[in-house]
Every structure is written in C-alpha cells, then in structure tokens.
C-alpha cells in the first residue's frame, strides 16, 4: 500500500520536473531560467527519493531508474495536472501555483508520518515547495495585475488547469495524509492569491481524473516516449 503512495507522490514530482525542464533556454528572462531550473531540480530530487523508497518497499529490486524508465503510461500514478503540456508562461504559473500550494499542505502534514522515510523526505521537501509556492504566487500576482494581455493570459491559464484540480484531493488508498483534508487550507491560500491578483477561480464544470489509477491523458505517452527512449534502447547499460 505504502509503496503505491510513495510511487504516486514520486511520479507527480518526476513528471512535473520533466515538464519544467522544457523551459530551460526558453524562459522570459535569464533570471527566470535559473529560477525554473532550481524548481525542477528540487522536484527531481524529491522524485528520486520517493521512487527509490517505493522500489525498496516493493521489494522486487527496482531502483529509481527501473521505475522511471521501464514503466509504461498505464503504470504511472501521477495526477493528470502535472502531465499537461507546459503551454505559455501563464499556464505554467497557474499549474505551479495550484500544485505547489497542494504539495506544501501535503508535505507539511507528511512530516508527522509514522513512516520515518516519508517523514524525512517531507521534512526536506516542505522547505523546497514553500519556495515554489512563493515563486508562483509572485508571478500570478504580476501577471494577473500587470497588463491587459497578461491578465487575459493568466485567466486563460487558470481555465486550462482548473478541471484537473479536484483530482488532487480525491481519496487515495493507503495515503498517510488524507488528500481531502488538504482542500480547505489549499483553497484558503490559492483563493487569497487570486483575489489579490484580481483573478477569479474559474467556474469550470469539468473534473478530469484517473491518473492515480493509470488512466492518463494522451500527453503522457509522448512525454514518456521522449524521456525513456534512450535508456530503453540500451537494456542493462549503466549511465
């Protein structure tokens, strides 16, 4: 049970790191290139710890790379939100705000887990995602309350990611932290940021879900094809 929980959280971090890595050499300014790479590196670090631990719990001899590179998309357990294409900077920041705010509440509670490894990972990660949440907050404020164009794009970015919000808070068997309990503090934080930015939470009637059960969007297959192809082309090789 717990191995599936560690795997799900690890997959979330891994897939989002992969998406953020796409911004390298494409960011709006050099300073932002450096900032986004830092966030991607934090997430990648979390992914590696969590996947390694998931492999240990599973006891089948799979390490972080076996789990990252040798599973097909039906076996990935990340939420759909993190696999969506990066879109423009506003879509990326909308996702960052939504996801970092969620991860912050999650890791903050996971620190108290009876599982020492998960508690330790959470203890380190909570500081990292605190910064990620702050980074996204700064940008949502500036884009929401910047120019007409940035406001329009930021609102559109929220529209894009909002159908994927509910999935974050769905029940998960064997979770150390009940996802449903994160909704209220998440709402309080994100709601306040949007209000200050002059943005409305989109009134979407859509609720996309399935990632935790391995039912993904079409986007994940392409992401994995790119991420995995070299590793899989040389079975058994060391890198």
């Amino acid at each position, binding site marked *: 049970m717990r191995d599936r929980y560690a795997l799900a959280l690890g997959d979330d971090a891994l897939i989002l790191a992969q998406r953020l890595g796409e911004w390298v050499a494409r960011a709006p300014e050099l300073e932002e290139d450096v900032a986004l790479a830092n966030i991607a590196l934090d997430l990648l670090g979390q992914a590696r710890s969590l996947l390694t631990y998931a492999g240990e719990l599973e006891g089948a001899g799979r390490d972080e790379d076996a789990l990252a590179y040798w599973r097909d998309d039906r076996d990935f357990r990340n939420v759909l939100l993190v696999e969506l294409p990066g879109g423009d*900077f506003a879509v990326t920041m909308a996702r960052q705000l939504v996801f970092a705010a969620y991860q912050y509440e999650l890791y903050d509670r996971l620190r108290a887990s009876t599982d020492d490894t998960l508690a330790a990972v959470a203890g380190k990660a909570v500081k990292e995602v605190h910064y990620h949440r702050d980074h996204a907050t700064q940008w949502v404020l500036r884009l929401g309350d910047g120019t007409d164009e940035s406001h329009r*794009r930021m609102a559109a970015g929220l529209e894009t990611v909002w159908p994927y919000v509910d999935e974050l808070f769905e029940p998960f068997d064997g979770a150390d932290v009940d996802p449903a309990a994160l909704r209220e503090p998440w709402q309080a934080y994100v709601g306040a940021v949007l209000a200050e930015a002059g943005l409305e939470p989109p009134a979407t009637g859509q609720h996309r879900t399935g990632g935790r059960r391995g039912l993904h969007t079409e986007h994940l297959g392409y992401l994995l094809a790119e991420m995995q192809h*070299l590793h899989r082309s040389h079975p058994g*090789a060391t890198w």
Partner: protein
Amino acid sequence: MAGTEEREAAFYAIIDADGRIEPRDDMPEAYRRTLVRQIAQHAHSEIIGMQPEGNWISRAPSLRRKAILLAKVQDEAGHGLYLYAAAETLGVSRDQLLELLHARKQKYSSIFNYPTLTWADVGAIGWLVDGAAITNQVPLTRCSYGPYARAMVRICKEESFHQRQGFEALLTLTRGTPAQKAMAQDALDRWWYPSLAMFGPPDTGEQASGGHTEQSMRWGIKRFTNDELRQRFVDMTVPQSQVLGLTIPDPDLRWNEERGHYDFTPPDYDELFRVIKGDGPCNAQRLAHRVAAHEDGAWVREAAAAYAAKKQEVAA
C-alpha cells in the same frame, strides 16, 4: 579635471602595474569598446551554449544524469547573466546586447553551432568544450578589467564541475557496452576539431587575426595567444583521452620530446570562419530558438514592469 594625456597615462600606469581598471575609471574608448565586444560575445556564448546540451535534458538516460545536466545548463544561464552584468558596467544594457545578438551583429562561440546527436555528445561537450573554455577563462580571472575578472573567478569555480561531469559521463560509456563505447568514440571524432577551433584563428600565417591579439595583450584583457592556449589544451587533454581509452582523430598526434609538447593537426580554419559567418549546421536553428524565447517572453517582462510601476504609483 585632468587632461586627456594625463588620463591616458594614469590608465597605463594601472595596466603596467598589473592593477585593475574599475567601471568609473578613465579608459581609452577603444579599450572600452573591445571589452564590450569581448564580454558580450562571451555572454552570448554562455546562453546559446545552453541549447545543444539542453537538447538532452528530457532524454537523459538516468535520473542522476538528468539532475546533473539540468544543474549544468542552469549554471550556463548564470554565467551569461554574470557576464551581461559585467558588460553593463561599461555603459551598455543587456537589452542592447541581446538585440545585437539577435540581429547577428555580435557573435558567439562557433562550437555551439554543431548538433548534439547522441547522449555521448553531452559528455564530450563537458569534457572538451568546457575544458577548452576553462583553458581560455582561467587567465581571464587576472584580466585588467575588474568586473570581468571577478565574473570569471565565479565562473571558473563552477566550470570545474562541468568538465568533471562530462569526463565521468564519457568514462561510464567507455567502460560500458560496445554500443556505448562506440557512441563515445563517435562523439570525440565529431567534437575534437571544433573544440580546437574554439581558441580562434592561428597566431601566424594567412589566417592569423591581424593585430588584435597584440593590442589585447597590451591592455591585459588577453594573457596568452590563441596558439599557446590551444597547445595547453591539447597537452592537457591527450593524457585524459588515454584514461578514457578513446582515440583522438588525429593520425599525426604525437609527443614532441624537443618541444615538450604534443604535435597535432590544427583544425580547419576555413570551416571555423564559415561557421562564424553563419554557415554552420545549427546557426539558424540556435538563433531562431533564442529570438523566439525572447519574443515569447516579451509579454511577461512587460507585465512585471507594469506591475512594478503600478505598485510604485500607489506607494508614491
């Protein structure tokens, strides 16, 4: 106010004493212009250089390598940033310099116009390209212009990790499967001569870079000639290639007891000039990528500036 001659004498007194010129000091206009060009070209190289390696972040063959590569490419963004800041102390803005880059009016290192075709290219770049860059840059930590020298100190500290990770990545390949070893050799075959060309045209002969070197040395913004640095790089790299078990693609490469250096075949300088002029495999692609990133980001930069202006108005 001192007269022009007196000012010039004061400038050269500092240079001759191996002192450092600082931003608000008097300096000959030609010194300032040469520095702006050199630092800008260096900064452009750092940020264009993010692309060939960034090309492999999504496909890195292990999560450990992915993290290393991401951190390395991120460092290059930082290097560009430090260098643009050093250039800005000479009275040009980053925006102006980027405009010149985008309009092809300023150059960047020819090496980044070659494609990264396999994973081994990432290792080869770290080992050879960062290695060549370090050879070029270490003497610049003692360059006469203070802000440039200080930027180089910071950069050189970070570069040593770059070269080592590249070497380690290649070593892993050469100790791996036959396919991996072949990949490593293929990368060395393709990157060797372009890396030698990074040191620029030869000191003598038809293709020599007429007179620039002498003037730059007088000003303390270049400490060694192109050929001296190229030789230093070859002497350092050949023994490393032996540790890797790879063959440098030069049948005439051999130790010259008398000179105390390796003899080697120089790179094809005509090719170097062609690539610098824009006719390399990836020139168009690299520049298009850079311009697109800049243009796609314009609305973000504008939004942040507008937000800051609004907040200032409220505060005032």
